[in-house]
């Protein structure tokens, strides 16, 4: 499968990227270099330029980042806190507090598609669902669900009414999280769908076509179409390589999965059945970013300094595990890796 590389970000002082997020309009990129600080990059003439903004409010490693459709940045950390950041008119990023009430580390974060609420997966085996409380001028959390182990993955239904959670206890649960003006709706917090995955869950995604996809450590991706109700069969697609850590729907019938194979893998729905389409290959095409000559010599140099072992040629653009992946426009998505790079891809 061919894909093209839209842009690539590599900073000399960033050696490991453990999570990143790009705003829906691609204007801003937030990333965490496996530490407490968050760096903000801005798109200037088709390349991400580092801004002076360093968001340093957390006291331990940041584990999750997400942009809302209103261009607010949510960050969560192992120090059990979360912040919502918004850019002021003077360009500064200001945090607003979140009353997370977490007993243990926060592991993942996701804004609802309508941008009004967000969910935080916690190591204390539950999920914090946060909304803005006008009276106390702060984001307030409500707890949803109780798993047998840490919540490692979250995904919102496009309607913002349902939240899917994945846990290391092997279960994937979709909760009703509808809320009205007065507070929680009548069915709030009730599980709608429960699936046993056989191994701990690494990530979940919801498509616009009502398909729930989840991937677990046994290198499988499972699809469940919720159009046919909660008892619909689960399609279990096995991958012949290593497990995936993150999933992203890049279209109704296209899903990208990335993880320990260092390269995104595309899954397609054809004739109603999901299947592996293969690894995304950049082909021989020179990426569009920067002048070609410079880029080539740079690649040459990089190869010299990072020789791959046992004479194996580098087959992908990343040289270590891909830890996060975020979709934006149709066919476009970005990946960040432990090798310290962030890449924006486009399916061709």
């Amino acid at each position: 499968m061919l894909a093209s590389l839209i842009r690539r970000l590599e900073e000399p002082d960033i050696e490991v990227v453990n999570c990143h997020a790009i705003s829906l309009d691609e204007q801003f990129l937030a990333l965490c270099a496996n530490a407490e600080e968050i760096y903000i990059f801005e798109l200037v003439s088709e390349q991400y330029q580092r801004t002076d903004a360093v968001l340093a409010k957390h006291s331990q490693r940041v584990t999750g980042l997400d942009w809302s459709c209103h261009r607010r940045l949510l960050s969560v950390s192992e120090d059990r806190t979360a912040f919502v950041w918004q850019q002021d008119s003077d360009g500064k990023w200001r945090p607003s507090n979140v009353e997370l009430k977490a007993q243990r580390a926060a592991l993942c974060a996701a804004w609802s598609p309508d941008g009004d609420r967000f969910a935080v997966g916690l190591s204390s085996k539950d999920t914090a669902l946060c909304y803005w409380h006008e009276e106390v001028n702060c984001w307030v959390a409500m707890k949803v669900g109780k798993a047998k182990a840490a919540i490692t993955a979250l995904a919102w239904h496009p309607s913002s009414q349902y939240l899917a959670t994945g846990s290391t206890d092997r279960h994937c649960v979709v909760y009703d999280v509808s809320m009205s003006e007065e507070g929680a709706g009548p069915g709030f917090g009730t599980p709608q769908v429960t699936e046993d995955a056989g191994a701990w869950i690494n990530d979940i995604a919801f498509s616009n076509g009502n398909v729930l996809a989840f991937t677990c450590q046994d290198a499988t991706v499972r699809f469940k179409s919720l159009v046919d109700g909660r008892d619909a069969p689960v399609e279990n697609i096995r991958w012949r390589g290593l497990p995936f850590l993150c999933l992203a729907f890049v279209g109704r019938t296209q899903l990208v999965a990335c993880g320990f194979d260092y390269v995104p893998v595309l899954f397609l729905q054809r004739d109603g059945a999901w299947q592996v389409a293969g690894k995304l290959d950049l082909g021989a095409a020179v990426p569009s970013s920067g002048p070609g000559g410079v880029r080539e010599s740079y690649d040459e140099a990089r190869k010299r300094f990072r020789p791959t072992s046992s004479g194996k040629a580098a087959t992908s653009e990343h040289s270590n595990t891909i830890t996060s992946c975020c979709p934006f426009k149709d066919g476009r998505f970005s990946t960040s890796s432990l090798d310290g790079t962030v890449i924006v891809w486009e399916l061709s």
Partner: protein
Amino acid sequence: MAHTLAPYLEVIRHTLNAALCLQNYPSQVVERQSRPEIEFKDTAAVVPKPLVIARDENEKCLIEPSVNSVRVSIKVRQSDDTEKLLCRKFAGFFTQRAEHFVILRRKPVEGYDISFLITNTHLEEMMKDRIVDFIIEFMEDIDKEIKDLKIALNTRLRAAAAAYMSQFSQRG
């Protein structure tokens, strides 16, 4: 075919490749800490059952996976007392210098001669292929080393014996 080391090491290489899929995992039990799940076993769900790869009872490899750490233990073939002694000395030499080897565990797992502990932070700093290569090469080397040491030891014994005996033959 049945007696070469290569197929055995190849199985271990593939298994390590699959087992070294580690991620960051803050402890569910202790606040503000991440610690190797395979050592502390805080969450049973993220510590799958261990695997054994064996050539026979005397030469095997134990791989204990978990979400953020893997323990690899090796039992080296020791066919006689000399080899047993050499292996103990050899393993002792390494474990006393464990901090130089980063992934070496100070104390081997019960029933094995030498253990490695690899965590997700190692994979952030080092290349996974290199770690696997290191362990495989280590296994090749320790096998060869013990055989060489044994030969050297025997040669010296013979030389010493010959030198000692030579004084009697001169007199005679």
